[in-house]
């Protein structure tokens, strides 16, 4: 337990640059977007005329319409949170894919695992570290969105402002664990990040296109973004979706852990395409 905590501490400390960069970036965006609502609300007639001139498909792509965009929830959903899973998802796929394999490809994992930490403690120490980092980014973002709430006509309190960060956190964790799992299955971190990133972007576009074309709906139902909500009320949160996505993340994490327990550690660099059987016995005598 002590070594798991040591691994967690060092992982979290190692991610502090990313926590500050992404968290403060999100916070600054919040500081800019919250006061913008008041400007928009003051000119809503002009804004509505502008929206009416857009093709309906354009607004549908973002899951919005001319009236919902002017409501506080619709405004934040459209301008603040709709693209967050993709933007913060960049952190998710990069950090997730390099969580274990980054050290292996740089030739450091050998020596780390030569210390009495155990692969399980090391794996979960690292995983908890990135979980902590992701939550810290969300907290910083929430703080940025909350600072100017009092003076805004959005009409939300601090607790309501935290609500959309929950589905966002769950989406990010999904991509972290996907990238992590792929990094342990595929020959290289780059490939894992690419595929996880492609899934993330495809998920966003397919889910958005489903608003415009019902024929895409069936595929959209398989995409993580389809289950992303930008609501600002806890009562409107679909807990089943949240828990299901967390469950999928947990399954991918366990899968990644089992793979890590059984695979050989490379000295350095990327692996080959010769993929060992996932659950091969440790020793064929």
């Amino acid at each position, binding site marked *: 337990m*002590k*070594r798991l905590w*040591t*691994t967690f501490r*060092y992982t979290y400390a*190692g991610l502090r640059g990313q926590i500050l960069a992404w968290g403060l970036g999100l916070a600054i965006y919040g500081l800019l977007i919250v006061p913008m609502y008041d400007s928009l609300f003051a000119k809503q007639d002009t804004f509505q005329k502008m929206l009416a001139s857009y093709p309906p498909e354009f607004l549908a792509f973002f899951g919005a319409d001319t009236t919902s965009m002017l409501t506080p929830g619709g405004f934040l959903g459209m301008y603040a949170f709709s693209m967050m899973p993709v933007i913060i998802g960049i952190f998710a796929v990069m950090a997730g894919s390099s969580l274990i394999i980054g050290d292996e490809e*740089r*030739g*450091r994992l*050998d*020596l*780390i*695992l*030569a*210390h*009495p*930490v*155990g*692969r399980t403690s090391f794996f979960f120490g690292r995983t908890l570290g990135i979980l902590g980092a992701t939550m810290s980014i969300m907290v910083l973002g929430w703080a940025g969105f909350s600072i100017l709430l009092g003076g805004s006509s959005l009409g939300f309190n601090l607790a309501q402002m935290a609500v959309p960060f929950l589905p966002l956190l769950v989406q990010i964790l999904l991509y972290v664990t996907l990238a992590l799992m792929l990094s342990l299955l595929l020959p290289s971190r780059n490939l894992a990040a690419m595929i996880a990133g492609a899934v993330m972007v495809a998920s966003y576009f397919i889910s958005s296109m489903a608003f415009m074309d019902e024929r895409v709906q069936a595929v959209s139902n398989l995409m993580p973004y389809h289950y992303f909500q930008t609501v600002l009320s806890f009562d409107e949160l679909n807990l089943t979706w949240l828990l299901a996505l967390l469950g999928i993340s947990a399954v991918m994490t366990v899968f990644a852990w089992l793979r890590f327990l*059984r695979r*050989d*550690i490379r*000295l*350095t660099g990327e692996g*080959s395409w*010769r993929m060992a059987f996932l659950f091969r*016995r*440790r*020793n*064929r*005598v």
Partner: protein
Amino acid sequence: MNGKSTIVPNSEVALQVQGLTKSYGKVRALRGINLEVKRGEIFGFLGPNGAGKTTTIRCLLDMIRPDGGSALLLGLDPQSNQVAVQARTGYLPGEMQFFDNLTAERQLHFFSDMRDGRAEWSFVRDLAGRLDLDLKQPIKNLSKGNKQKVAVTQAFMHRPELLLLDEPTSGLDPLMQQEVLGLLREANAAGATVFFSSHIMSEVENVAGRVAIIRSGEIVEMAETGSLIRRTLNRITVRFKQPVKVAEFASLPGVEVISQTGQNSITLQVAGDMEILVQTLGRLPVLDLETDRPSLEEVFLTYYKN
């Protein structure tokens, strides 16, 4: 190495390896390694690049999983007792990489923390002083040799019972090589068992009590260093009072003509028994005779002649 080891633990043996095999696809890196390293000895592991030295050591530390065979380190199976083995072992990899943005001191603190802070920091400073290592320098600013010093320090700093060192003096200048060999001897004198691989035959010869030579994934020889040298080869330079024919020696079993200086001086290498050569020399007008103990390098190279 699956918790059902076929090796019977022996308290006098630090390292027991039996039938270790490992393949990478079609490449058979280890073809049945058998080794036994007694507690308290310094054991040299010799082999050229690609022979299987690093693969063997990494199997012992559970970095890679062998395809077959068994191993015990300090009486423990490294797969089922990984943490216990690594707590008592110091490892120096052949290729060292660190967290470049950390200072040497911070990097060593990390390794110490991974061992629950077992390293005495006064000892770490002592090691750094002896190796002339500036602990305040960022790793990224260190030369290859200085990084190797950090690697050596992290292997020794927690005073392990068993040291597994893959080319411990690589990249170091001759003075530091001697310092590291001194550390090795001191650790051994304090009771540690040392298992190290090297290309530098002279240091293996000076430090190791026993050596094993590995070739293409198999141990081809294992013996005490001195007896290996004595048993295997002798080099003799003979000066004659008058010219002799080289052919007279070339046909003798176990004798190889190394060189001839003029027509009166000849250097021979003899494997095994010298009786036939001595009898042959007895019939010739010998002026003087000089024998050379071959170096371990020459012994090593005979295993790679073909």
